[in-house]
């Protein structure tokens, strides 16, 4: 998913866009940026600073800075939950655990080696079950006897799930098992940071009530979820952009390093 947030100096959000990311990051970045500008009723020149983050951050030709999603998420989460100590983010490409102290990122763990433990795991298996991703959470909450998914690898877990279905095991128990599988994997990873409250859960998967529930069980404590868990990274990026700009202005400098144009990047050329 590609997310855009446009924010004013007062940190008030004036545009928010979420769209799917394909293989063609660049074109998409451009398109969603235009949409966002339209929503905010602004022209590109009126934007003081553009920060790109996330997996495709290097593919945003019009960005002034690239900052990792780890730093941006941390900043975004802190703005929403000032007391946060641990942030867990599960997206389609990766899962992250952030340790935050006094509003600053101090340590992190990350999995992007393997689809298991990321949103991709659920996507793949939901597709195999012929279900929509959004349906999973609700289905799993009906479970009374969740099954254990023994394969960690997404490809084989998919197979295992199909097998369980053919054995006549109720769908909700299987989906609950999947949620537990992903939650226990992520929890195990995040435990490396020594968990302390408040724990905040963000990313696309945080919209799934089943995973939230399973994560609570695995972490053994309360978990806060923002209203728009997908946007945290973009919000953080925008705030960092604002801070950088203000700092630059105070020094009488400008944040822009190069001439910046919002035009469709040609897909086959690496423009600068």
């Amino acid at each position, binding site marked *: 998913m590609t997310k855009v947030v446009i924010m004013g100096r007062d940190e008030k959000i004036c545009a928010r866009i979420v769209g799917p990311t*394909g*293989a*063609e990051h660049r074109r998409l970045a451009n398109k969603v940026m235009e949409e966002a500008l339209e929503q905010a009723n602004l022209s590109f020149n009126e934007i003081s600073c553009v920060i790109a983050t996330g997996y495709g951050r290097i593919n945003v030709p019009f960005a002034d800075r690239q900052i990792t999603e780890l730093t941006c998420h941390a900043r975004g989460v802190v703005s929403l939950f000032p007391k946060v100590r641990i942030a867990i983010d599960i997206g389609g490409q990766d899962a992250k655990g952030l340790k935050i102290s006094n509003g600053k990122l101090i340590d992190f763990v990350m999995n992007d080696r393997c*689809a298991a433990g990321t949103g991709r795991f659920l996507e793949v298996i939901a597709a195999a079950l012929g279900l929509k991703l959004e349906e999973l959470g609700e289905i799993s909450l009906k479970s009374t006897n969740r099954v254990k998914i023994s394969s960690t690898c997404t490809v084989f877990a998919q197979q295992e799930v*199909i097998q369980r*279905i*053919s054995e006549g095991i109720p769908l909700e128990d299987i989906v609950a098992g999947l949620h537990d599988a992903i939650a226990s994997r992520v929890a195990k990873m995040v435990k490396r940071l020594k968990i302390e409250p408040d724990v905040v859960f963000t990313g696309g998967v945080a919209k799934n009530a089943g995973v939230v529930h399973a994560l609570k069980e695995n972490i053994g404590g309360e978990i806060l979820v923002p209203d728009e868990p997908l946007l945290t990274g973009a919000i953080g990026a925008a705030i960092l952009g604002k801070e950088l700009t203000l700092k630059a202005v105070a020094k009488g400098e400008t944040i822009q390093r190069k001439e910046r144009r919002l035009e469709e990047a040609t897909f*086959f*050329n690496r423009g600068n």
Partner: protein
Amino acid sequence: MAWFMGIDIGSGSSKGVITEDGKLVAYHVLPSKANYRVVAQKLRDELLAKVALPPGDITYTIATGYGGGSVPFSNQQVADIRCCARGISSVFPLVRTVIDVQGMSSQVIRLKEGGQVINFVVSEKCAAGSGRFLEVIANVLRIDLKDIGPLSLKSKNPITFTTGCAVFGESEAISRVSEGISKEDILAGVHKALANKISTLIDRIGVEEQWAISGGGGLNVGLIKSVEERLGIQLLVPPQPQLITALGAAIMAEARGGLIARSEITN
């Protein structure tokens, strides 16, 4: 007249055939979906309808494949490796090595005349060694699976996948796309990567002419070409490569069922 049935329940699709005196008289393919029992029953119904026979006319049925244990009406379950060897041997009697590329794994089987297995090797439990790798990349490039083979043949400069893992391969494909590499080159690269995996399997059990390919991978011209180039060989491709294992099951059913029929007579 005696009819025999072979049912191959694979991880992705299920195949069934009916043979009569060693000849294929009917076949049917269905996606396996979730319930193997249901798909097996449906496969049988479709097959019987095609030859207009009642179930009782089938002398013997052998089930095989990933879900071969979930075929309630089969007389026997046999390992897919053996069925594949019998099947290919019935189509190409001179084949001594068959490369069977399935959704869950790839296997290379060496056989002697009559389709007896003399050695085999199965890829690791890793999606990168199976047809699944192709699916993953096709999916991320948003290209229909059936088009990836022909498309890959257009490549002049296949990329090299330096990773041996489908998940990594996916991100590698994404980053190559964003570097401006063409989809053709990426597809040719993934075919090459799978061909490399297959050639590793072959390195482990040695080579003998003639060669054939079976399984879903046999439908993919890109993969066939990559394997041929990688190994410097010519692959025989049966008309319906994905049916070979089911066909082998039916042929084994004939041998087995024929034996039972004879023993009934002598008794």
